[in-house]
């Protein structure tokens, strides 16, 4: 049985490897969520080991701006998540729009740990545009993964963004190779304003 890493633990791991992720906090009441939001739009997610696909299970509510919206969403989410006990509710900053990519890791029975880069979000399954390599990867590998993608011009239109993604790939490869996790999804990572934010993390051991 795959066990999901606790969000705090996952985020600490990302921080240790200097991989950017969107600011998030567990909240145990609507008031805590409102305080976290501090008048900026947020997302609420119910995290549970029993439903690995949050969106499919209706455990994500996006773009909450007012106190009332936050309160209603918190209560509705708690009701829905009740059947997946134990669960926790996570509040996250709403990230700006951008290009969604996926960075992931898998453990192949034959070749061991591998990293993946692809066009992300809702496009992952549709276009299946991704590149895969065994860990650890070199800078050459990172570059060639980018070059292999059909969506290269979308996700890395210039040298600066290519460099940034290469760095990110190298960090993720190092982190994944050194950890006890078997599967990893950073999906989506949103590329915006010359930087990126990992918005959803899923680490499984």
């Amino acid at each position, binding site marked *: 049985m*795959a066990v999901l890493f606790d969000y705090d633990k996952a985020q600490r791991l990302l921080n240790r490897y200097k991989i950017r992720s969107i600011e998030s906090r567990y909240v145990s009441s609507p008031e805590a969520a409102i305080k976290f939001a501090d008048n900026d739009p947020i997302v609420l997610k119910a995290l549970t080991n029993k439903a*690995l696909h949050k969106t499919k299970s209706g455990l994500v509510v996006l773009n909450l701006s007012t106190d009332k919206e936050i309160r209603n969403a918190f209560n509705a989410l708690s009701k829905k998540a009740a059947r997946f006990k134990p669960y926790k509710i996570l509040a996250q900053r709403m990230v700006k729009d951008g290009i969604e990519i*996926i960075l*992931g*890791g*898998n453990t*192949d*029975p*034959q*070749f*061991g740990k*591998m990293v*993946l880069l*692809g066009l992300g979000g809702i496009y*992952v*399954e549709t276009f*299946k545009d*991704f*590149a*895969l*390599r*065994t860990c650890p*990867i*070199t800078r*050459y*590998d990172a570059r*060639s993964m980018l070059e*292999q993608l059909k969506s290269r011009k979308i996700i890395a239109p210039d040298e600066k963004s290519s460099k940034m993604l290469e760095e990110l790939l190298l960090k993720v490869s190092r982190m994944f190779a050194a950890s006890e996790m078997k*599967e*990893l*999804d950073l*999906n989506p990572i949103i590329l915006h304003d010359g930087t990126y934010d990992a918005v959803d993390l*899923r680490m*499984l051991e």
Partner: protein
Amino acid sequence: MKTNYADLSAMMHPKSVAIIGASEKSGKVGAVIMQNYLDSGFQGEIYPVNISSSGKILGKTAYKSILEVRRSIDLAVISIPAEFVPQALDECGKAKVKGVVIVSSGFSEVGRSDLQEKLIAIARKYKLPVIGPNCLGIMDPRSRSDTLFLPTFKIDRPKIGSISFVSQSGSVGSSTLDLISGEGLGLARFISYGNAAVVDEVDILEFLGRDSDTKVIAFYLEGVKRGKEFIEVASRVTKKKPIVILKGGTTESGAAAAHSHTASLAGSNEAYKAVFTQYGFVQANNLEELLYFAKVFDTQPLMKGNRVAVITNGGGHGVLATDALYQNGLVFPELTKQTRDSLRKVMPSIVNIRLPMDIGGDADDKRYSDALELLSADPNVDALMVITLFQTPGADEKVASMVAKYAAIKAKPLVAVSTGGAYTRSHISVMEEMGVPVYESPDSAASALSALYRYSKYRMAKK
């Protein structure tokens, strides 16, 4: 931890061979192998071994056991019923045989893993390299050693060369061997390794990487057992020589159990493809490509860029070649002014100085020579594709030898395209004999050049 058995040189190029299960009974595998050794002109010693035989087998002194031979044996070929194989193998170990091929079947492939385990234990005890069981074995055109139990009249044996062909499967192996001869390719070694009980793909790659007879490795693979070691060895070998690989089998494992997008995308086939890409393998999609790619690697130097100049004596073929090049990620070069001016001087006015360079249906060897000389000297040209349609009045054997002459210089990669019947084929063999890779369509020529370019890029990159 598995023992490594990469020292296969004695058995691959043997001076003496024992055939265990040799027989005079026609139709028996042991009889075919024995007969093949006699017919092929093998120069070394041949020792037939058969427990129920005394005197001679096919004119050679026979032994009841390999232990009775009492001389140095480089290779023992075992072709007896599976249940007797462990004992015969143990005797090979005692007799200090350098390597064994077990062609017999009846092991793990039919559920008798217990028998196969015995072989593994014996091999380990004597540190004895064993190929098989359940395989065709090995062929070395140089020493004319050939353990294949395929009658010589049914399958062509290729000429001596520098391509080594490796196949897990016997049937893919033997039919491809036939094709290799048909394509006029030269063979360094043929290895069909069957169940891979002892010597596996990792050992074979390690050996071929060091084998000086082998310049190109063509590999039909269904799966590897030691993934990490396979990567480690392959990454060293591809830095020295190309491995063209065709992966059979579409086993998907773990996809159903995946909990993440990554795991559901990164199935077993994708993992193999990723490993091949990452470690510089040249991937073929089918048997034809496996041979077409091996052919260009066998004779042509590395390709420094993706700019290909096309010379043709047929307009339509020039158009097809253009499409094929661009579809394969290759492009036309921008010719220098000097090249364009020189071409204008020597070409008749009907010839347009642009690519594809259509030198006219009446082009003869002189015109081909001028075009070849000027285009191959242009610094912006990385490779040449020369289309020679022998149906035209000007094209004859002089054109064929002119193309071969430029290919022999090997300054830049050159491939030829020639389509046609018997008259054309006779010229194709002249060109191929002289080391020009000739293809029947612009498309296969372009995909071969593209494979050469991808590998060259890998070799030249800083990793």
